[in-house]
């Protein structure tokens, strides 16, 4: 059974492929998630705007050559974004603190548990920032953007197996480093 939202997206993509003036609908649909992803990586509004502009402008210009491989259109946009961020920020690290971005006020459990969890969350995401670039990107796309492995593979230009390996290595490293940071009880 086909997914109606995917069918709808395919139609929009096909229209924009034939006539770039139809690209606006795709922009409206994906702007928020791409901007949010870019901002999460660069954490500076002007830089996020620059990179987001670059992503959509490149996507528009490449639309006539876009080929539907069965993966969501967003995976392709993420791929452009991942490359754009890597090109501009490979040697730089975001400077803004994580607390400004990741919402650490988890609702649900008792307040004390929430505080402990929030602290752990902050600590783990801080460690993510120190991971090698590829591992970091794979973790962010998986756990922050909630993408499927195959879509991450498209976005990162790798095989699904390679993405899983990156996630495994990243999570293992986080485990090792988190345990070394854990206060002695």
């Amino acid at each position: 059974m086909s997914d109606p939202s995917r069918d709808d997206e395919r139609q929009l993509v096909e229209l924009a492929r034939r006539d770039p003036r139809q690209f606006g609908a795709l922009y409206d649909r994906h702007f928020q998630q791409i901007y949010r992803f870019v901002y999460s990586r660069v954490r500076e509004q002007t830089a996020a705007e620059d990179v987001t502009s670059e992503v959509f402008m490149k996507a528009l210009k490449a639309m006539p050559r876009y080929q539907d491989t069965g993966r969501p259109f967003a995976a392709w946009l993420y791929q452009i974004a991942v490359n754009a961020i890597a090109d501009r920020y490979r040697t730089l690290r975001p400077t803004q603190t994580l607390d400004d971005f990741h919402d650490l006020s988890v609702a649900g459990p008792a307040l004390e548990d929430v505080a402990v969890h929030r602290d752990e969350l902050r600590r783990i995401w801080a460690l993510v920032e120190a991971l090698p670039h590829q591992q970091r990107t794979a973790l962010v796309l998986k756990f922050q953007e909630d993408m499927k492995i195959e879509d991450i593979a498209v976005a990162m230009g790798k095989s699904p197996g390679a993405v899983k390996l990156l996630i495994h290595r990243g999570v293992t490293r986080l485990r090792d480093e988190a345990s070394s940071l854990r206060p002695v009880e």
Partner: protein
Amino acid sequence: MNSFHDPELEEVLQEEDLRHIASVLSSARISDPPLDDAFRTGLRRQLMKEAWAMSEGRDSWWRRVFAPPGPRLAWAAAAAGVLLIASVVLMFGLQPPGANTIAIHSSIDGDRNVELHQPILVSFNQPMDHPSTERAVQIAPATVVTFSWEANTLAVQPTSRNLAPNTQYKVTIGPGAKTASGKQLSSPQTITFVTQPPATPTPSPTPRATPSNALGEKQLTTLAGASALNGQWSADSATFYAIDGNGALKVVPASGGTVTVIAADGVSALAISAAGDRLAYVRSGKIEVLIFASGQTAEVSPTTTPALVGWAKDRLLWTDADGIDSITGDGSIEQIAALPKTGSSAVVSIAPDGAHAAYREDGGLFLLDLASGKSVQVGQANATFAGWSPSGRELLYATENQVVVADMQGATRATLPHAEASWSTQDAILLGSDTDLYQVRPDGSSLTRLGNGTYHTPAWAPNGTAFAFTRGGALWIAAAPALPPLPTTLEQAATVVNAFMKARLDGDAANAGTFLSDNGKKAYGTGSLNLLIRGDPKFTRYYVLAQEVIATDPDSALFVVRLVLTHAKIDVSDSEETLTLARDSTGGQFVIDQATAGSRRDLGNGAEVVNVDVEPDIVKVTFDSDLDPGTVTDGVYLVDSKGKQVDATVSYASRTVTLSGLGLKEGAQYRLVVKTSVRDVQGKNVPAEYALDLIGPTDKKHGNKKDEVPALPSPAATPPAA
């Protein structure tokens, strides 16, 4: 708390504590980042404008129409006529489009960076009467154009094929334009846009053969389980000497020929002398030195167990637990530098020039100067050695997250992405890892991805083209493309000028001031020069009118920058500043050292010079208007410092006056003069005599490329088998 379950990750996150980490990661909620709605809508508008341009350009009908003269010209829907157009400025019609309203659209309206090689496309919302509409088109600056139509879109193309650079165009459709049904345009409508600077030719990278399979990767031999490369290239880059996982010393031809074995086992380290004539290696507690020319092997028996070998020119060095040793002239062994007695230390590498060694002590990385015996710590406690520059005067070390380029005092020069690194004789650094390979300059610039896949312990060959690496326990070879050329002296200076001018445009005086030397600050602190230009008309854009390198060693460059002032979106006046740039006291970055101001001129009163290209033998002066060729020969010329006109051959084409056969003297003063006798095609004279002071340029156009590395002789003899 561990509710994490993701079927996609089941196979890789089997351990409980890994799933816990994944659970924590996935529980983070993402707040909405700060977002300027104006940005969102502005970007959409920009995209739609681009989309319209793409849509119009897709059929490239105007390209066919305006192809070089020939049979295709007849394809035009309407005959293209040549028209001389008067320059006027009219108000914009803003009525909403409707059945009875003539609406006009152009995708470049308001654009401030329009490409030079394109027609001006004007779209109407209904069929137009072609002759009356073409007659109603007015363009400023004065330009000779041709017309063509595709459906309801009119293409206006300069006959010189290009638009003038750095120029604001005003294209007005006057009320004489009629629709096909005879209805007249109610009010004039004007499109304005600004064109780009002229394209500057960039030197192309040194050609290097591009292998058909990307980097031409080739597996040469297996390394018996060794995952990291332990070995060295021969000086002529024809052979790699590798130690495999069993301690065998192998001679591996880069061309892929037969691999021979010098020593079957027990080898732990090797080094080839700087001249490339000898190979020393540590084997079973002794050092053997193979002389390539004769194929003979000499043996050295240190009193303590050697760990590494190296060369200081032709002098053999080796390390042991206490320091670095060598042999004296009488054949006795002497320690030339000692490791600290405190703590646990071990040498990890000897520099290629044999002047320094890197060693670890209690988790820290240190550099030992073999001549003085002094040490400095490099990086923090977790730093690990990652490589030397080919000269041995800089080193690479790795931290947890990055590779650091440092000098011999441990001072950071640049940081690079984390990877295993190798520094070439051409100043390119390879960065290899499990997943990809990058190439970058030592200053962190020109980062280029070369490939996806495993590239462990890359090692450049001395020729700076080939490199070795390990993948899957085997030795591989590949060739990397050249990095883009380093910026020329003029490009480096232009970067500073552009950053300076952009800061001024942004109203950021503090930032602009950082590009000024003390002299430059004085120039902008007194007299007629102001860093920030306020008021109306407003400073909205600038462009470089002329640029030249006027001296070398030390480098100096001259830039003439034109500042354009705008009122109600129309450029109304401009003024010039002449900037002289020099390298700062360290000889590195350019700074603006002198500045002088010219007077302000009103625009729109006749032809204006918009670009001057200066070379020792030729000066090209580009105008914004098409000129009356008959007025050019006596109207544009160069005089020397004594006021004497410089002999030149004058020619004119496509708005550009060319003075050739000049022979300008480097550093001498000249003045370009444009007389008021020069007229545009409308018959309007240049409003006031124009003068531009220039300096005879050097012919240093490009620079900073390293000389090719001369090939050293290949080891003559095939080494004897062990």
